[in-house]
């Protein structure tokens, strides 16, 4: 019993620290930004960093908590981006306040991505392990191809859409919103850093509450031992689907936020490379470790920009840093060294075994 309470306290502290660090970072950057202390380069990256952090949290729910490898997460980001931006264009006259419009667009993006997650989940979640990973990869590519051939226009007669070629035949004054391979142009850039921060906190709140609920414990039971979980009556497909859809919805909102930060967006942006990039955030930050993946997302987005001064060598350096960090974080000696430095971990020396268990469970 005492062990359980201890475990809970460690878990609660971990969650509290995550919220605190994210909020603190937000306040620091917001103050620096308004005081003009941030370079244009940093200021321009604030919103994409938020979007990537949310993506990392979203994928961590599938990879870290549910224990299934998804290689097509950029697909959900894409669905959220396109549907969200289209919604924002349609609502331009209905909702004049930018922040409200952004919120509505993100909700639409999340809803469409959740729908995509549900549809894809039906065949995918009957698989497991490597098979599941490869099928998600295929679905990511399918989403990209579909959006590359999708045309959506609006005119006084309502919404029109067509596939392959533009057969929307818009009336005078109509606007073609999604233009196949040309994507969406002329997006109003309404994504802001505060909105990105709010989305990050919401995503964290959803995932943390989910993980510490009955549902989350079922996820982890499935991850740790599928057969044992099934034997105690956990409906595996149902719980996997829940995690998958929830993760897709969060990714959709992140995609919408990301797209609204640029004046143009194309489906090819959300390709296999983007999926892998997000997976790298998760693996580097630690599977199941939300704070870790958030920090990894921020660091790996800023790193290539900071390496610009190395010109042609920066790609090489980026890879070298990645390898060094991967090796470093998995080295027991270095881990112990950092644990000693960490003031929040001062109880760990007394409760070494509990902490280890918590680390494994998380």
């Amino acid at each position, binding site marked *: 019993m005492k062990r359980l309470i201890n475990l809970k306290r460690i878990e609660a502290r971990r969650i509290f620290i995550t919220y605190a660090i994210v909020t603190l970072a937000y306040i620091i950057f917001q103050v620096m930004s308004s005081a003009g202390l941030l370079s244009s380069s940093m200021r321009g990256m604030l919103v994409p960093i938020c979007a990537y952090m949310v993506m990392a949290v979203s994928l961590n729910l599938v990879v870290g908590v549910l224990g299934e490898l998804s290689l097509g997460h950029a697909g959900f980001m894409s669905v959220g981006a396109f549907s969200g931006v289209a919604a924002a264009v349609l609502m331009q006259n209905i909702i004049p306040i930018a922040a409200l419009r952004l919120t509505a667009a993100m909700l639409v993006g999340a809803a469409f991505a959740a729908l995509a997650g549900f549809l894809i989940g039906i065949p995918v979640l009957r698989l497991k392990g490597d098979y599941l990973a490869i099928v998600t990869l295929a679905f990511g590519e399918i989403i990209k191809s579909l959006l*590359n051939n999708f045309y959506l226009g609006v005119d006084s007669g309502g919404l029109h859409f067509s596939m392959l070629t533009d057969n929307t035949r818009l009336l005078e004054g109509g606007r073609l919103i999604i233009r196949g391979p040309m994507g969406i142009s002329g997006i109003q850039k309404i994504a802001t850093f505060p909105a990105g921060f709010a989305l990050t906190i919401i995503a964290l709140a959803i995932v943390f509450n989910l993980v510490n609920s009955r549902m989350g414990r079922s996820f982890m039971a499935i991850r740790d031992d599928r057969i044992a979980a099934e034997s105690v009556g956990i409906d595996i497909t149902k719980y996997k689907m829940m995690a998958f859809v929830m993760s897709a919805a969060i990714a959709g909102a992140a995609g919408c936020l990301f797209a609204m930060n640029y*004046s143009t967006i194309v489906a090819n*942006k959300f390709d296999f490379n983007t999926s892998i990039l997000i997976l790298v955030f998760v693996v580097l930050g630690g599977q199941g470790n939300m704070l870790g993946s958030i920090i990894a997302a921020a660091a790996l987005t800023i790193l290539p920009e900071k390496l610009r001064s190395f010109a042609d060598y920066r790609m090489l350096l980026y890879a070298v840093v990645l390898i060094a960090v991967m090796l470093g974080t998995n080295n027991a000696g270095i881990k112990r060294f950092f644990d000693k430095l960490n003031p929040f971990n001062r109880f760990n020396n007394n409760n070494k075994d509990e902490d280890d268990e918590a680390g494994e469970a998380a």
Partner: protein
Amino acid sequence: MRKLLALALAAMLVMSAACAFAAETFKIGGTAPLTGGAAIYGNAAKNGAQIAVDEINAAGGYVKFDLRYEDDTHDAEKAVNAYNALKDWGVQVSLSSVTSKPAEATAAENFADRIFGLTPSASAAAVTAGKDNVFQMCFVDPNQGSASAQYIADKKLATKVAVIWKNDDVYSKGIYDTFVVKAKELGLEVVSDMTFADGNDTDFSVQLKDAQDKGAELVFLPMYYQPASLIFAQAAAMDYAPKWFGVDGMDGILTMEGFDKALAECVMLLTPFNADAKDARTQNFVAEYQKRHGEVPNQFAADGYDCVYAFAQALEKSQAKGSMSAEEICGLMIAQFTSMTFDGLTGANMTWSKNGEVTKDPKGMVIKDGAYVGLD
């Protein structure tokens, strides 16, 4: 001794002040894909611009440039990052971006920050649309499509036309759309309309068979030269020899490694730049480029070169000062570019409209004996 030192110092001050008066130095910068799949275009534009900057600085005229290019890997997100890095460096006039989608993203930033942009080669219409301070050195994609159809109809090259285009590419799609509209208007019959995409761009037998079966006399290829080179080779293998017609993306096919030039014999293309032109300026540029980089410059290099010279002309005419902010220069540049005429490697008597599109004559070229020859 102290007097002497003071005198020397004073002399130095006067000299440096004199230098500053003699030339105004401007920070000019752009983003380009220097790595990745589109790197040939980015590096060509960068190298062309670098040659122009070196020439201008060596000539010691009114204007001096400090050039900086940042890598955008042909990605809109990275392009905005690269643009911001240039802004931190203190860029005063911008060469925007080399490829279309990144340029669309950075053009919006140019507009918001009031930094004047002149893109060498981003040809999508959306780059300049609705922005009063972003201009293009190249044709807009839609213009290329309609100009090609016009050219084919005017010269009575064919009546039955086939089109093979890349349906996940902004450039190809932009040209295709207007070509088909204009062709219909002019009575050209598009008998075969086939597409390909990234990932299935190595086998064109289906597309070529379709064009052959439907009796197309001319095949229009709005695409870059790598897929075109495969199309030529595969058509030759199946004994299909229609007239071929390309656009400026075809430029560069003759310098492509391992390409049999005989395959491109009699291929026609519309391009603003011809590396074999006989005028002294083009020859000097080609010779210098070959000396530095060991290859014949393509259209992108010439566009980059022209952009820098256009800036030099506009900055000198408007008597802009190197100490001015980007926003002040932006106002001067808008006034200059909408009123001046510019002669460059990619066309004579170029003018710009208020919405930033360039007006210049496309040159019809045909490949004869492995070299471009003027069509007219």
